[in-house]
Structure formats: structure tokens, C-alpha cells
């Protein structure tokens, strides 16, 4: 299970914190996902300029990550007061999320694939949690107010379940695609 993890699995493990905590609704997911991606890009390009000792590099990057997440948190709630209701401590904690440091890794070379998978996952989890847990989407009421289809989804256990189901769907699709490709290659060889 742990060998040869896919990018999606690594995103899931390294970014589980914002995936569970920052996806109560779609607005919140968008704000946290975009903030995480921007911080990741800044860290990646700053890490690329480093030429000194290995250990110091990581300590500086970690300090930078924490500082950037604080700056994002303060900026968002000051410049866009409307968004304050959509931010929470998880925006502040982006600085300690390992996924934002992936660009500085010496062995992981698909930086933008990580960001793409993370963004898609955040949006999907946020959208599903809002629709099922609150009965709304982007604040627009879809069901009778006060009667969401699956109220428990807005809480922590629901977040686990939604992440698990989305991951399962993506994984089934990916495996089917690989299987179909192999079958196509096989039929071409026979022809």
C-alpha cells in the first residue's frame, strides 16, 4: 500500500489537514486552495535560489512558510472582510502543511501535478460537503432551509468519508483507464 504511491495519494497524505479542515464550504475551499498554491509557488522559487547548507535551507523555508501563511491570513481578513467568515485556523496552519514544501523536494519533480490534484480535490470536497452537509452551493440554498441531505457531512467524520469516497472514485477511474489502455495496446499488437 505504501510503495509507489501515486501523486494523488501523496497529495492526500501531505495535504490532509486543509482537505479535512478547510473544506466546510466551496468559498472556504477556494480561498484555502488558492492560498496554499500561491505559498507553494513562492516557496518553490525561493528554494530554487538556495545554494547553501541542506539543514539551514529547510529551517529557513519552514520559517518562510509560517510567515507567508500569517501574511495571507491577515491580508485576507483585512483586505476582504467579507471573506473572514470563510477563513479559519486552517489558513493559518498552511505553513505547517508538508504539501506546500513539495516544490523544494529533491526527489519530487511533478510540482504542478501536485498543485493541480490538490486544487481539484479541495474544490470537490468543498462542493460535496457544502451540498450534502449544508444543502447549499456557494451560499445558494438548494434544499429546504435547515434540512440538508446529509447533515453529518459538514462535521469531521463526514469530511473523512467524502475524502475517502472521492479518492475511491478517482482511483477506480484511473485503474479502469490503465486497464483500457493495456487492452487497446494488446489489440493493436494482435492486428
Amino acid at each position: 500500500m505504501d510503495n509507489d504511491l501515486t501523486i494523488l495519494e501523496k497529495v492526500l497524505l501531505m495535504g490532509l489537514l486543509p482537505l479535512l479542515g478547510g473544506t466546510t464550504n466551496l468559498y472556504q475551499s477556494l480561498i484555502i486552495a488558492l492560498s496554499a498554491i500561491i505559498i507553494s509557488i513562492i516557496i518553490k522559487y525561493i528554494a530554487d535560489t538556495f545554494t547553501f547548507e541542506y539543514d539551514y535551507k529547510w529551517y529557513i523555508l519552514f520559517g518562510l512558510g509560517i510567515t507567508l501563511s500569517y501574511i495571507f491570513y491577515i491580508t485576507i481578513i483585512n483586505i476582504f472582510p467579507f471573506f473572514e467568515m470563510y477563513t479559519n485556523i486552517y489558513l493559518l496552519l498552511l505553513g505547517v502543511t508538508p504539501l506546500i514544501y513539495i516544490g523544494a523536494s529533491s526527489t519530487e519533480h511533478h510540482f504542478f501535478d501536485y498543485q493541480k490534484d490538490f486544487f481539484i480535490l479541495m474544490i470537490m470536497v468543498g462542493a460535496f460537503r457544502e451540498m450534502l452537509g449544508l444543502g447549499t452551493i456557494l451560499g445558494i440554498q438548494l434544499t429546504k432551509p435547515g434540512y440538508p441531505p446529509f447533515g453529518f457531512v459538514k462535521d469531521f467524520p463526514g469530511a473523512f468519508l467524502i475524502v475517502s469516497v472521492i479518492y475511491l472514485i478517482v482511483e477506480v477511474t484511473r485503474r479502469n483507464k490503465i486497464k483500457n489502455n493495456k487492452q487497446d495496446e494488446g489489440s493493436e499488437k494482435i492486428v
Partner: protein
Amino acid sequence: MSELQRLFLDSILSKNMSLAYFLGVLYMMVESKTIKETTIKGLKFVSTVFVINILGWLLNSILPAYYDPLNPAIFFITTLLGVIILKYWGELDGEWFGLPRYILIIGPLFGSQLLIQSGNFTYPKMMVVNSAYVLGSFILFVLIASIKEEILVSDASPVFKSYSTILAAIAMLALGIIGFQLI
């Protein structure tokens, strides 16, 4: 049910925010081939987190309120202390997908202190929440190791032998705990 008992049940799983760190990253560091090894490693990690959380809370409480903006710096120092302890135990050697392991542990150590501080708890409440956090995480380490072992030897389709099954199992467990809270 008393306020502290409810807080304990809340914090052990269904509102265990530090668990998100543990599950994502720390579990990968703690998890070993056998349940016994996972248990020993898990004990080392959760006991460090427990002590560091108390230390961070104490330092935060001793300092006057106008020093609150310095909290991240205080938590960073206590986090480094935790890293030193775990390094001494030999638990932070090597890398994980190109990231050094000591960088990965900084997240759980720093984040759980920040989470406890954000709750503005009194000492008894902090101890209850802290104990529930580490107990919930430790139980899950062992449970996940067992579930994982079962999944790998089961006849299930390969697609179910993945993290999605583990996450679904945790969700069910959390729902069970919520059931207790409703009593």
C-alpha cells in the same frame, strides 16, 4: 455527562484537529511492519506531543497577554525541543518523498500547540483536550495498523486495498463516537 467528560469525548476523535496532522504525515513516520513496532513508535511520538503541548501552554500562560503576538516564536522553540527529543530517540532519520523527516514532525508539534492555544483553555481543560488528542491519535495508530494488515491479506479488489478504506473506517469510528456523545 460533565463538561470535562464531554470535552474529552469531543476531542478524542470527532473534533480531534491534531489528528489530521497525525493521519496525514505522522502516521507514515510511525507506521511499521508490525503492530508492536507501531505501538512503540506511536508511544514515543504521542508522549513527545503531549509534553510539548503542556510546555507551550505553560509558557503562553506565564507571559502577559500583550506578548501574544510572540506565541508562534514560543511554539517554534518548544517544537525544536520536541524535534531534539525525537532525534535523540533516533526517530527522525532519513527522508520522506524528498522532505527531511524532522521537517515533517514540526507540523504536528507546532500545529497542535497552536490549536490548543486557540481554544483558550484553562489548565484542567487543556489537560483533558491534550490527553484526548494524544490518546485518540495513539489508538488510531494501532487501529489503522491492524486494519491495514487485514486489508492487505483480504480477498478484496485491489482498489479497496488503499487509503480510501482506511479513511472510511476512521469516518465510521468517528460517527460511533458521536453516537456516544448524543447519550
